């Protein structure tokens, strides 16, 4: 059983249909920790030592957040800025996160077609994810392609259910250690592994 840490960042969960549904599918198991950042740090006062201890205790980390303005909500950035310290997460002697697996689980309003050269967002999701990817690289972590729920603007109940169940299944696969890491890395979206 791999230990999974879901770092969830949503400033207005009460008005998000998709994410409310997604987090319901996170399996309630001892080896999976759901960590609601906006609920824990409404004043943005991230407890660095506590976060570091959480990271140490898990092998897989998920940055779970809505994809706002081609990035994450600000508290997740604050978390990255505060917790990933020099000499601990990166730099000289900074090997605390070495070989841990990390990826983003995101929801986007626009659908997949919007995220390509011809679409109105012009770049691919993977391109937008580069700052996260390089953050992971610098911390010697293994970065996987994102799990993405796209086109949420027009999702109907059934589609939402399907996306949520997929998220749950992905977490189960990760938890059981059934993931083919090399194959996963080669995908565009982690959704495709299911």
């Amino acid at each position: 059983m791999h230990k999974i840490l879901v770092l969830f960042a949503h400033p207005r969960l009460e008005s998000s249909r998709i994410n409310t549904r997604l987090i319901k599918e996170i399996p309630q198991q001892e080896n999976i920790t759901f960590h609601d950042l906006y609920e824990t740090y409404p004043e943005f006062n991230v407890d660095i030592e506590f976060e570091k201890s959480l990271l140490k205790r898990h092998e897989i980390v998920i940055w779970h957040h809505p994809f706002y303005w081609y990035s994450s909500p600000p508290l997740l950035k604050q978390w990255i800025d505060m917790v990933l310290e020099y000499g601990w997460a990166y730099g000289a002697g900074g090997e605390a996160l070495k070989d841990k697996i990390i990826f983003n689980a995101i929801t986007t309003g626009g659908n997949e077609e919007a995220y390509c050269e011809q679409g109105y967002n012009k770049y691919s999701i993977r391109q937008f994810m580069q700052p996260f990817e390089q953050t992971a690289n610098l911390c010697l972590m293994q970065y996987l392609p994102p799990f993405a729920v796209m086109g949420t603007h027009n999702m109907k109940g059934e589609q939402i259910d399907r996306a949520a169940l997929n998220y749950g299944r992905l977490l189960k696969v990760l938890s059981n250690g059934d993931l083919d890491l090399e194959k996963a890395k080669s995908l565009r979206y982690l959704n495709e592994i299911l």
Partner: protein
Amino acid sequence: MAAESNFLLQSTVFLAAAVICVPIAKRLGLGSVLGYLIAGMLIGPFVIGFIGEEGEDIMHFAEFGVVIMLFLVGLELEPEKLWRLRKQILGVGMSQVLITATAIFGVGLLLGLIWQSALAVALALALSSTAIVLQTLNEKGLMRSEGGQNSFSVLLFQDIAVIPILAILPLLAVREVSNASETLISDLPMGLQTLAVFLAVAIVILVGRFLVVPTLRMIARSRVRELFMGMALLIVVSIAYLMQLVGLSAALGTFLAGVILANSEYRHELEADLEPIKGLLLGLFFIAVGASIDFKLIADSPILIASLTFALLVIKFVILFVIGKVFKLSVSQNFTFAFALAQAGEFGFVIFSFVRQLGISTNETLSIGTAIVALSMTITPLLFIINEKLIQPRLCDGSTDDREREMDVVDEHNKVIIAGFGHFGSTIGRFLRANGVEATYIDNDPDQVNLIRKFGFKVYYGDATRPDYLLSAGAANADIFISTLTDPDENYQLVETLNKFYPNLKIMMRAQNRYDAYEFIDMGLEHIYRDSLDTSIRVGVDVLRKLGARAYTARRVGLNFRKADETAMWELAEHRHDSDTYFSEARARIQYQEDLMKRERGEDTELVDHAWDSESLVKGFGAGEN
């Protein structure tokens, strides 16, 4: 009756002379000391002649100002700091007195005085004027500079040195005289005399340590204002008397008492109470010095007296400067030090009159000597001006500034003053201290002060609404004044005083409620903190969370509410004097606040916060996509 009217007339003359001359002198940049001296010369027997020979009696009375001044100096000097100064006091002080006296002794012999007379004159002239030097250094803010500190050390040593000097003078007596120094213990054998002296000092220390502070606390609790000043005077007068009994310098005794009380919470209050009395008595003293200058004598042999005075100043200056060099003062500090102490002082008068009784010197020598002392004292403020205007500007010694600033911190002139050290004030205090900001705390509840002191906070007892008290608490050097007082009237008075005397001080004011806050807005305050606001909102935010709201949303709602409430307070403050517009404004404000909250909750679709809402996005993007 005649004596009484004479007293009233004298008082009128003295006070009028001071009131007229001092402001003019200050205006001309000459300092208050010179103003008083000039006033004295004008009303003295040789110019207008308002006062005659009684000048000398007045001088003795006014010398008490010096005694109080030393007490106040002691209050500023904590025992640890005095201990740190010991090398300066002994090293710099002793070398100054010994070398200067030797040099003047030599000059006296060359001028044909017999050796006994030359020695007596040398000892009298070697000493400097505590009154003029300390007053001027304080006025010019040089007390904490290195030159100032060294000057002070030398003056302190001189105060101590007066005792052995007065003791050895009788040995120089050429003819037999009856015992001149009449003290209670002078008939006792030497050993017992010494014992009595030590006993007196021990009494001062023990009483200061164990009796004075509890008594002050009791008086503070009784809240009879004038009793405090009475007690302050009682301390000084009784110690002066005790010292006189055993033949010690009264100034030295009160200085010691001051040092012992320097750590107590009543320090600023004592300072505030005694400061005006000291100022007035010192003024009187300087007037008396001015009046005592014998212009007839000077007119008879002007060249002799002028050249002797000049020679004295030069000799003392050169010796001081060399000593300063040896003790590694920077050039600019050394100039301040040497100019400050180049004159002869009031102890000169005392020693000369004693010498006259003993018949050591001729009357002519003594008259000339006295004139030299008075003249050199009068010239001192001018020397300070020369130093300040001509010498210091040429010595742009950057290092001195730094040193002065460093000393400042040690002596508790904090940038922040907090009035009221209850739960509100102490929380601010703990927070600031945790972040390395030391503040000066004042409170007028003696029990509270006593309690908080046990936690290691330096709280001072005092009434923050008094201007003189604020000054001694360092309001002139502070940047921020925080009032946590709860009594509105006290606060209004405080704000008025601060605005009047310290307009540059930033006031941060605790207000009880909205109406309290309006008053402060009317008074022009900008930083107002309502007791009831932040905590109430925090409770509200937590209630929302307990009822299931998301933490961050509850927080945002709370912040918005506070912001709207603050804005409303400032806007309503304008309308509050007109009850009609006030209530309509207030209703409009409350409505606005509720709208704002609804909008945050997303209930009012017209006002919905569009930032992260998918419905409006669908309208813009989504529809076109699919």
